[in-house]
């Protein structure tokens, strides 16, 4: 017969104020198989824990039930106490008398009876508990960082500086991301390149970082501590070990009119190109879609120009496999562009720009070397209108969320314009000014008060061209809804920040969840902002939601700490609450029939095929096996299993059945 110890906690008055705890202890004490039942004011305190430890030894308990708060709060505490007394910690269970009972009911007879029932259920469950051992998995102490923007750069450097190896992959020919495209940064107006490029160089030179540019993740298999990443190294068509980065090939390339991605389409580049002068690595790749040789089979001027023979025409994409223990996703964001704002004429009128394009105009490394000039005719705009919330906070556009960074960068844009074009007039149409951040509000006030930017609260209905001017029709809601019409020379749309294209597919490759807008989902909105709900995969930066540079850097460092903490262990210990497929003695081996319905049901790819072989090596049967490193214990497979061959350890069908039956047997 079982010898169960039951310990009822008053939780100060949290439980005892509404539940008659003494009666609970008394009645449970009379249950079959209960050897000892007491109540105490603070079970989690040192004396409380001592009661449990002593009782385990004194009565030789083979199971413990603590009726107290939520197991989320103190299950580890009580399990540790039991383990110290020599009892397998998984033979200790908690009945939640606080959140599930005392906090949600009035003081009454029924409340006490419910508490008794809750404890009774757990007593019946504990009787069926089996000792479990926690799962240990080895850790590969090498991290994969996907995306080489500021988030990926920061995460890589932070992880590398803890002494662990990092593999950083970037899909473009250079690292740097959106931050390298920015002119000055709010709220201090320090030059983006000046603060970023040293970090880019540091990444390239760090002994612990292996950088793959022009590379994309092909697939990711495995589980926390033990991932296998297949990485596609796209053919650069240039041998980087011999290329000196002299740039002669770029100068001679005859295909010169390709819209430059780095300049957000405002400048052009060649087919063999380095995205920008400060690129890391500062060596070119050939864009095969636009290269004359790949298109028509002739040209090869770059090959003739190259002094060191670095052009590799026949180079193919290469797939490499890297083993890593953790992954940091830092794939960033994109901005809404062409054709999303027909009412604002974007894509039709050359002088209607996105915020990112304005950054390039204002940047010293941009197509106009930092002078604000109209793309249409090169004239300096005398009047400029900035439209905040272009797409953002607009359910009709399918983007109900706030893109967060636009208020600040619009203020910065207007400020930069006023600084660069003396006597220019700038107007900002806004819905609300969201300037939450250190020195942010002051920055916006400075734009309004010192730089005399005209802020109009209201939305713009339409932008159209008339006699070479852009007519901006909007409304001033602070002046009684008066209609406003401005003849502008340039219009800048603070377009919504959206998930990067391909983020959905990437999320599916990695088995991380994403929100309706394809941003990657954090494990908990408050307490686990850098974790995903796939163990070992972390998030950094705007791939999770639009965010500014300080926040991105903070998050990247947060993700790096999580990775470092993971790598501080040689082995990972996991709760053994995982699914297991039963195994029986031959000739049955298992009740599993090998239908693999569980495999289709499992969201974590944890189901493997196990071949049962005879002594002569012949295959007897193939059954399912659960990879305990991957399994998250969700139980979906249990529900799917037609032959009832899978159980969750610690929550077996038998245990849950016992709990339910304890209620029915009254």
């Amino acid at each position, binding site marked *: 017969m079982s010898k169960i110890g039951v310990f009822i906690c008053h939780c100060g008055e949290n439980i005892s104020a509404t539940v008659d705890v003494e009666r609970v202890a008394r009645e449970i004490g009379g249950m079959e198989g209960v050897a000892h039942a007491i109540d105490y004011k603070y079970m989690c305190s040192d004396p409380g824990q001592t009661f449990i430890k002593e009782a385990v030894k004194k009565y030789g308990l083979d199971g413990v039930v603590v009726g107290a708060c939520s197991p989320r709060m103190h299950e580890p505490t009580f399990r540790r106490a039991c383990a110290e007394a020599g009892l397998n910690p998984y033979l200790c269970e908690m009945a939640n008398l606080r959140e599930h009972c005392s906090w949600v009911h009035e003081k009454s007879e029924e409340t006490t009876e419910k508490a008794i029932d809750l404890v009774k259920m757990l007593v019946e469950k504990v009787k069926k508990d089996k000792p479990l051992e926690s799962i240990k998995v080895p850790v590969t102490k090498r991290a994969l960082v996907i995306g080489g923007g500021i988030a990926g750069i920061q995460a890589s450097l932070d992880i590398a500086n803890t002494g662990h190896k990092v593999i950083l992959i970037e899909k473009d020919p250079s690292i740097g991301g959106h931050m390298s495209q920015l002119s000055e940064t709010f709220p201090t107006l320090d030059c983006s390149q000046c603060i970023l490029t040293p970090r880019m160089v540091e990444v390239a030179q760090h002994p612990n970082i292996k950088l793959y540019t022009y590379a994309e993740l092909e697939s990711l298999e495995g589980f926390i501590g033990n991932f296998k990443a297949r990485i596609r190294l796209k053919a650069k068509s240039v041998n980087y070990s011999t290329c000196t980065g002299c740039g002669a090939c770029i100068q001679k390339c005859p295909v010169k009119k390709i819209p430059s991605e780095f300049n957000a389409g405002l400048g052009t580049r060649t087919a063999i190109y380095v995205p920008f002068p400060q690129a890391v690595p500062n060596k070119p790749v050939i864009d095969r879609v636009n290269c004359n040789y790949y298109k028509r089979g002739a040209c090869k001027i770059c090959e003739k120009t190259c002094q060191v023979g670095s052009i590799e025409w026949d180079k193919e994409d290469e797939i490499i496999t890297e083993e890593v223990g953790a992954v940091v996703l830092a794939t960033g964001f994109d901005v809404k562009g062409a054709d999303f704002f*027909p009412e604002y004429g974007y894509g039709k009128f050359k002088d209607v720009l996105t915020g990112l394009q304005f950054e390039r105009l204002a940047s010293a490394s941009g197509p106009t070397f930092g002078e604000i000039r109209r793309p249409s005719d090169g004239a300096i705009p005398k009047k400029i209108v900035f439209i905040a919330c272009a797409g953002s906070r607009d359910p009709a556009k399918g983007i109900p969320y706030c893109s967060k960074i636009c208020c600040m960068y619009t203020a910065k844009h207007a400020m930069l314009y006023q600084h660069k074009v003396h006597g220019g007039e700038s107007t900002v149409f806004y819905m609300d000014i969201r300037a939450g951040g250190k020195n942010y509000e002051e920055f916006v006030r400075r734009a309004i008060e010192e730089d005399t930017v005209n802020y109009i609260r209201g939305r713009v209905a339409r932008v159209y061209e008339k006699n070479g001017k852009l007519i901006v029709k909007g409304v001033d809601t602070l002046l009684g809804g008066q209609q406003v019409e401005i003849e502008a020379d340039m219009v800048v749309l603070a377009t919504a920040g959206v998930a990067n294209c391909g983020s959905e597919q990437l999320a599916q490759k990695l088995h991380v969840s994403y929100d309706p807008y394809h941003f990657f989902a954090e494990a908990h909105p408050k307490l686990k902002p850098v974790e995903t709900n796939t163990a070992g995969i972390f998030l950094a930066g705007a791939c999770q939601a639009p965010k500014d540079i300080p926040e991105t850097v903070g998050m990247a460092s947060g993700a790096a700490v999580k990775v470092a903490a993971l790598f501080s262990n040689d082995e990972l210990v996991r709760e053994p609450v995982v699914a297991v497929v039963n195994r029986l003695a031959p000739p049955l081996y298992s009740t599993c029939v090998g239908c693999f319905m569980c495999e289709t049901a499992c969201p974590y790819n944890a189901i493997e095929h196990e071949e049962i072989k005879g002594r002569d090596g012949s295959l007897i049967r193939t059954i399912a096996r659960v990879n305990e490193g991957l399994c998250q214990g969700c139980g979906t497979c249990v529900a799917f299993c037609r032959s009832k061959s899978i159980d969750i350890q610690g929550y077996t069908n038998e245990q849950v059945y016992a709990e339910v039956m304890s209620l029915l047997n009254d």
Partner: protein
Amino acid sequence: MKIGYYPGCSLTGSSREYNESVVALAKALEIELVEIKDWNCCGATAAHVMNEELSLSLPARIMATAEEQGLTEVVVPCAACYNRLKMTQHELKDDDKRGRVTEILKMPYQGSLNIINVLQMLDVYGAENIKARVTSPFAHKVACYYGCLLVRPHSILQFDRVEDPQSMDSLIRVIGGSPMDWAFKTECCGAGFSVSRTDLVAKLSGNILKDAADRGAEAVVVACPMCQSNLDMRRGAINKTLVQPIDIPVIYITQAIGMALGIGATELGLKRHFVNVEL
């Protein structure tokens, strides 16, 4: 092809030419229009600002009648009627409102009808047909004017791109015309203020016509009787507000297509306009 037909009041009165051209075009495209028997007014602009129950009951009766007559799809050429029927359908998804309205109507209302406008009908049942039957291509530069009611509110109508609709433009392309890019596609013409504040309508409609004329439109093409009458019938008042009078005609999309298909001017009602149609 058989579709239910709700002409509405305008099409039997001030906008007879719209009705005539819809009917003539449907015939040419072998679309059989089955007019709802015993239809009533949709309540238009008056009812929904005066009395909610009335504004829902009038369109609900039309739809209930159509359902009773076994129709599943109804084409509604008038933009205001189309808007009111669609809005009512949406409102009556609420059980409470539906209960009240069926109580008033004393007849069952399913809400199962598919309500479409003329552009949708032409797109779904006609596009290929039209292309094959064009005899005299409509080689004109025109401004397609959608107005307010055809595309708004987008969340309920779910028709075309709300700020820059394209459906009429693509129909014009099918018949060989060149729709132009202009600024007043969905601006308000003044609508029902035509009678009470003709001055306002003259100003608003004037803005629309002026932009179309400035950009070299030979005609304005519409799919709403209210817009048409404001831009056409009020031309005298409009021209008084302008320095340069405008004489470009305002025709229905069904008339434009009818012309391309070689249907006669009388059949299309082209002689009923205030501003002469000489295209």
